[in-house]
């Protein structure tokens, strides 16, 4: 039972790690999108 609970806790922490990894990934994607869109806007104004 103790092992099950310990594994359960680890799973929860892994889920939280997954959540932070997801945020990091999403942030990278958004950063790239901002750079691309900014370039397009700059091209248009030129």
């Amino acid at each position, binding site marked *: 039972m*103790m092992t099950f609970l310990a594994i359960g*806790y680890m799973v*929860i922490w892994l889920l939280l790690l997954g959540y*932070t990894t997801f945020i990091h990934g999403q*942030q990278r994607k*958004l950063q790239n999108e*901002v750079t691309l869109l900014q370039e*397009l806007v700059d091209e248009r104004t030129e």
Partner: protein
Amino acid sequence: MKQRQVHPLSWILAVLVPINLYVIFYYAPVEKTMGIVQKVFYFHVAAAWIGLLAFCVVFAASILYLWRREDRINHLALASAEIGTVFITGTLLTGPLWAYPIWNTWWTWDPRLTTTLVLWFMYVAYMALQSGGVTEARKRLAAIYGIIAFVNVPLVFFSARWWRSIHPIVVTTEGIGLTGKMKVALFMSLAVFSLLYVYLVPLRVKSIALKEQVRQLKAELLR
């Protein structure tokens, strides 16, 4: 090649989380009446603490937004609401894991449980209010809602004290009903979760700000 920077807090958390797990499972003694199922308590309470703390931040940021009307304050409120909801979800999921062997039921409409569930729904609604293309008026409305929704936070905390509840109250005016080693495990869990919150909030604020920037640039291109 561009090198990715790793936040110092993520290193601290990477060290503290396994230590915290060790303290919970091997350092803190097994509770005599409930047995090892009591170990759920260390996650349950810490997650609830972060949930309530996050909603206090939403409340403060909402007041500040109405006063200053700065987007970054609105982003902080939204980020905190999201993280608070994630942790309250953890509280609502771990509660039944403890309740079933102790109360012989997964769920009961106890004041503490009911107010917590209502709290969860209220902040899900808050996030829905802030989703999609958010106008100034929507942001103001969300800030007012963030202030009103906060009323439920003290209700959750005091519900087990004010009304007839079967939910255990560990922290009372007479002290904390735990042994020394259990207190160490609890306070360490609270500290680790608080650090996690401090780590997650700026991360989410940045994501929200970037999303907003993308939306504005797209609108500019379509003009």
